[in-house]
């Protein structure tokens, strides 16, 4: 059993205690698109199974809703959890190593800020743009304002701006593994590392859906708009 998937299930709003009901039944109860649910779950379960084509077939609304839910999960659940563990680390140590451990705390807050900014930009700038592209594409009606906007900002800009928020995470892991001054609580360190590795893997899966599903889908519609607005 892949217990990591339970986290993903909760992002769809499904709570534990679903008994022996089938996926189909549970999805119906929660009003979830079964096929979309299965594709997402499978792509997390098996890295080699990445149904790019299938996933691109779903409406953007579903994809973005899912991406938003994972953002919430990072900011509301995962990050506060790690934050608390790191705080414990400095509380339980003596005065001298306590000071350096507080630096780790500060460093992690720098990372949180970066992650928040990143997510905010996606939700407030990128997603609304993506929806307006989809609307124009489906109604086959291209407002001038959109054409203007497309000239200034396209999904490829989003992809190239998709900055390296993972760098700080990478550093934090290495600092904890290699450079923390003793004495520290080893169990706490391992707990933090496990969480950091999980967060990193989760963020990578998340980015994969953005880069391989969202971006190509929008790029395709942008191309259509660029070709048709002139006529």
């Amino acid at each position, binding site marked *: 059993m892949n217990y990591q998937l339970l986290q993903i299930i909760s992002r769809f709003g499904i709570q534990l205690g679903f008994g022996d009901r089938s996926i189909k039944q549970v999805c119906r109860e929660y009003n979830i698109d079964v096929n979309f649910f299965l594709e997402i779950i499978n792509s997390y379960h098996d890295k080699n199974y990445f149904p790019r084509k299938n996933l691109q077939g779903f409406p953007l609304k579903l994809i973005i809703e899912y991406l938003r839910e994972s953002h919430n999960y990072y900011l509301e659940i995962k990050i506060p959890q790690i934050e608390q563990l790191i705080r414990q680390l400095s509380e339980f140590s003596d005065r001298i190593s306590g000071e350096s451990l507080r630096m780790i705390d500060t460093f992690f807050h720098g990372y949180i800020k970066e992650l928040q900014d990143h997510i905010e930009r996606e939700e407030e700038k990128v997603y609304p743009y993506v929806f307006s592209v989809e609307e124009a594409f489906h109604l086959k009606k291209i407002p001038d304002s959109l054409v203007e906007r497309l000239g200034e900002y396209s999904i490829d800009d989003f992809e190239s701006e998709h900055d390296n928020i993972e*760098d700080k995470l990478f550093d934090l892991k*290495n600092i904890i593994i290699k*450079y923390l001054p003793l004495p520290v609580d080893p169990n706490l360190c391992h707990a933090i590392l496990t969480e950091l590795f999980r967060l990193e893997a989760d963020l990578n899966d998340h980015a994969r859906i953005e880069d391989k599903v969202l971006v190509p889908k929008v790029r395709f519609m942008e191309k259509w708009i660029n070709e048709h607005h002139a006529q």
Partner: protein
Amino acid sequence: MRNMENVNVIIADLSPLSRFGMISLLRQLNYPFSFREVSVPEKLKNIIHKDQASLVISSASFLEKFSDYQIQTMLPGGKYVAKLLINDLPHSQRKFTGFNEIIEFTDTERTILRKLNKTAASLARLNSFQVMPEEISDREKDVLRLVALGNTNKEIAGKLFISSHTVITHRKNITAKLGIKTIAGLTIYALLNKLITSEEIN
């Protein structure tokens, strides 16, 4: 091999006997190999693309249908990758090039193990220094100090009387040795190792 990460090995061979045989020989060597078998020539390109193998072992009969050029572009290059050929077509006119070592189909177990060991050892040497932590030099410490205190490359170049280009080289080496990429991370390292004090930052 404590300092080595898992080594991905691709075994490309039409014959299951040959693939299993190779794997059991490789298991006798004490390296952290993880194996990927390929039995269909058309699939090799994709798998190489995905798997980031450090060692590719392929039989001549497996590669026979590809041109030299195709083989050259398909197999991974660079000095961190080793390629071995199992010559199971001894009577063929075809000469395959670009392989680190050729294993004859008629080689004895000892000979094969010797060849495999030689290749694995040189791979380990090449790959391990990437993951083995190295001390940073005194000059790199100077640069690190200044980076941690918030100086730009240009400012560091001015203070140490070196070119910006040299500063960049030092910074790359520091990051590679310490495994720390960001300035904030380097600052913590510098503080923990007493290269700077927290008063200096403020």
